[in-house]
């Protein structure tokens, strides 16, 4: 199983991604979609990234998931650039024979993408203000709990 990992600026077609994973013969497909929240006065979310490194880092994380759980399919799509509220940022889909592997791998992938893929979010607000999103301690803790498990 070779993970399908993509980085781009266009919208993610969740239906197409899920249909491909559902057709692999497994009994379980788990997915996660991250979306730009329509928070107060937010007009756009900008995702900066490290062009020479990002896809390789995402692929490394996906290969970790594939090594840890018996998976039939794994898709990760992450966008960069400027996104409006309601737009998809990231899609993670995992197919496996049984649900345990699919759900755990999905959770691992989003936890590690949040803390180990070189993206930086900036929030643009109505009135012209913009601020870099601060890293969350909860995200570090979520990522760290996978360290101790081979």
């Amino acid at each position: 199983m070779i993970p399908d990992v993509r980085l781009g600026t266009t919208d993610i077609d969740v239906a197409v991604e899920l249909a491909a994973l559902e057709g692999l013969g497994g009994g379980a497909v788990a997915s996660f979609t991250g979306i730009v929240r329509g928070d107060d006065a937010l007009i756009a979310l900008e995702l900066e990234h490290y062009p020479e490194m990002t896809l390789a880092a995402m692929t490394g994380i996906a290969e970790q998931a594939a090594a840890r759980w018996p998976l039939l399919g794994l898709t990760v799509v992450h966008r960069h650039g400027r996104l409006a509220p309601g737009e998809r940022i990231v899609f993670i889909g995992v197919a496996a024979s049984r649900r345990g592997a699919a759900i755990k791998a999905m959770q691992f992938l989003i936890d590690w993408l949040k803390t180990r893929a070189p993206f930086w979010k900036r929030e643009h607000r109505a009135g012209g203000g913009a601020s870099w999103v601060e890293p969350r301690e909860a995200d570090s803790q979520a990522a760290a709990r996978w360290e101790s498990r081979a």
Partner: protein
Amino acid sequence: MTLDLVYFAWVREAIGKDGESVEPPEDVATVFELIVWLAGRGGGYAEALGQLDRLRAAVDQRFVAMDAPIAGAKEIAIFPPVTGG
């Protein structure tokens, strides 16, 4: 030794450019020492690089700890903790 440096997010903004080539003195052996040397330039460098616990780094496109050696490195990136996903 010539190093290509790249900066991201508010590190890039404070320094005012997205990268540059530098020739650090020979006694600069680790990422930490490189950052301290750069911060010594003052101005935007001091502003961007003053708080080490708010910085992360990659050597040749791999995340490293601050005490990682820079010998043989081609590209060193300095940036805040990532916030993607």
